[in-house]
């Protein structure tokens, strides 16, 4: 039996979403077509849009459907940046050092290709952004800032960011704010209208929907230059035939996740607390990273560094015992690199190599936690023997 502890990477499809997807896949029709089949597909899409908007606290017209979270992040960062250059040159993009690469890489791309200037807000030891640093940047040069992008909750260490505070500060200076809420939806109370942000990213497969479906929720009137040009779908903001089965399944999953959120968040946080206790019991010198206060952390997230171990050794040994987790950082060619998130939090490089993220979700049970509790002690012992063999031995 496999203990799946990698829900932050992708979570299994919820049965309702799977049923909706399969049902819709059997129905023909392009939502842009004008005949009966087209209208039927369009109706499916618009109902999905309304369902998703209701789940996220936005109006349906604010939902721009995309092929996933990465595309939505790209549309937000590049689209806002370009749109903000028309009246006046605004080269500065303010973001944090702990964003997902779907935000960091578009920002870097703008720096390399468009002459943008990136300002990375620092984070504290638990990974929480320094809002005073944002205040300073905006006080000094708000007119130069194209946008601010701060994630709702971190995908690696689970730290919840003060998004409302960020939005409030930016609003004082008239600077638009984007937030990547991919990890937050379904676990934290994400209400677009109440949040004060100008646009927000959501991903289908993180809420129990399909991979390849997502949305950028963008405030009415927010000017976004499109990244994809073509048939003019999504009011010109995002061309491409809308994947009606996927967006229907996405909306069903998101609605289900949000409706059950409060009870699920408590249930999963309890499991997570058991997991943390079990790991620290078996490996007393393991270090819990991120916010130790549950109020500041995603309910399903547990992140540790294991001194003297390499993440890839730990991952292999757990995988061989049927426990699936993540080293928590982005991969390059399948190779985990020391996490930019941990390094930004001030974790030493050697400790950052021995990181594992365990993430729980809607289908997690106490058995999953028990499987990890059984495996982690011997696994860490063995990984320690293998040591930091890839580090410079003769340094």
């Amino acid at each position, binding site marked *: 039996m496999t203990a799946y502890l990698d829900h932050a990477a992708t979570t299994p499809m919820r049965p309702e979403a799977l049923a909706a997807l399969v049902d819709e896949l059997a129905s023909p029709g392009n939502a842009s077509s004008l005949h009966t089949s087209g209208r039927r597909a369009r109706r499916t899409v618009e109902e999905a849009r309304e369902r998703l908007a209701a789940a996220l606290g936005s109006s349906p017209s604010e939902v721009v459907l995309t092929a996933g979270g990465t595309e939505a992040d790209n549309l937000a960062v590049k689209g806002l940046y370009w749109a903000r250059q028309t009246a006046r040159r605004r080269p500065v993009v303010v973001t944090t050092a702990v964003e997902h690469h779907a935000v960091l890489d578009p920002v870097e791309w703008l720096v390399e290709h468009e002459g943008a200037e990136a300002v990375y807000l620092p984070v504290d030891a638990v990974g929480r952004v320094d809002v005073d640093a944002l205040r300073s940047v905006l006080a000094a040069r708000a007119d130069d800032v194209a946008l601010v992008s701060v994630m709702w909750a971190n995908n690696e260490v689970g730290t919840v960011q003060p998004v409302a505070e960020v939005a409030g500060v930016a609003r004082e200076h008239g600077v638009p704010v984007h937030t990547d809420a991919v990890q937050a939806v379904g676990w934290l109370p994400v209400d677009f209208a109440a949040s004060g942000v100008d646009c927000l990213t959501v991903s289908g497969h993180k809420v129990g929907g399909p991979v390849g479906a997502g949305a950028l929720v963008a405030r009415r009137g927010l000017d976004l230059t499109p990244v994809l040009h073509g048939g003019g779908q999504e009011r010109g903001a995002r061309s491409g035939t809308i994947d009606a089965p996927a967006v229907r399944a996405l909306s069903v999953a998101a609605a289900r996740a949000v409706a059950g959120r409060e009870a699920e968040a408590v249930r999963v946080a309890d499991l997570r607390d058991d997991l943390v206790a079990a790991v620290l019991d078996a490996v007393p010198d393991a270090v819990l990273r991120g916010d130790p206060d549950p109020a500041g952390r995603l309910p399903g997230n547990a992140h540790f560094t294991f001194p003297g171990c390499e993440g*890839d*050794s730990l*991952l*292999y*040994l757990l*995988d*061989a015992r049927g426990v699936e987790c993540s080293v928590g950082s982005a991969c*390059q*060619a*399948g*190779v*985990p*690199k020391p996490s930019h998130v941990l390094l930004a939090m001030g974790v030493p490089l050697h400790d950052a190599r021995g990181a594992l993220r365990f993430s729980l979700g809607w289908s997690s049970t106490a058995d999953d936690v028990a499987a990890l509790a059984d495996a982690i002690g011997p696994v860490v012992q*063995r*990984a320690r*023997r*293998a*040591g930091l*063999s*890839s*580090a*410079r*031995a*003769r*340094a």
Partner: protein
Amino acid sequence: MTAVRVLAAMSGGVDSAVAAARAVEAGHEVVGVHLALAREPATQRTGARGCCTVEDADDARRAADVLGIPFYVWDLSERFEADVVDDFVAEYAAGRTPNPCVRCNERIKFSALLDKALALGFDAVCTGHYARIEADGAAGGAPALHRAVDPGKDQSYVLAVLPPERLAHALFPLGDTVKDDVRAEAARRGLLVADKPDSHDICFVADGDTKAWLGARLGVRPGPVVDADGAVVGEHEGAFAYTVGQRHGLRLGRPAPDGKPRYVLSVEPVSNTVTVGPRAALDVDEVVAGGATWCGPAPVVGQRLGAQVRAHGDEVPCVVTSLDGAVVVRLGRPLSGVAPGQTLALYDGTRVVGSATIRTAYSSLTSTGTIPTER
């Protein structure tokens, strides 16, 4: 070998894929690992170099899928950089000619990787090297390294740095097969890499231009090119870019008095001098090498063996004349272009006796030869 837990190093090439397949078929419990050795891997292969691109990792992954074995990518780039690449640069800077494949086997595949594999509970590391390991009856059944049956592919030379305790945990399933049969077997097994070109040259020199690659790291250091009498006959942009026996790229203005081509006879890094001379002056019949590793029982003075000084070079008969500190062999016929830093591998029939790093080589008949460069 009875069924054990095997870590198969998979480069993404046909050899390591078939080697892993054979390990699976032999009943071993096999896990595939691709070693990420480049700091900044390129996305696609260009030409026939190396195994360090994302495309190579993907090829290895697909081969593992076909074999139905777990697969991981392990990052050994820091170790590779320190133990192979930096060593390569330092050796050239010191006027020597290193073999990075030998260093990689010695320090990465059968050191860093094997140590990690053993610690994680594996019994052996399997690679697609063409070499054989057989039980040595004379040495109480200890593992002995032998040449592969395919003389064109034999890679025992680059493995001659493995002592018995390392060989005991090595698996080379291709040693008894010729390359064409390996490709045919890959196709039969449905491995898409069956037709993938062999890799050549140095994997970390992306475009194959070693001289330019070294120049970018060591800078331009102009110095004299002199003949055996010390007369300056040209200028070079860095002695490190020259290897004993090299003929091309000398760019000498004046022709030699005898009108014949001139070759690099020695590279002296301290004075940054390259010495050139006629082809005949390259011939050596005595080789002195240090830092020996024996793959089995050590040789004895007076023993008649075979000597090989480069990966695909000829084996020449030799006799061991001294084992006092350094290994000294007298060659049965002269070899040319023997550079300090190269590996001297010694053979007893097909068995690899061991290897040592060449310090100097000279002709016992004349005074010419390479200038000793002590490590």
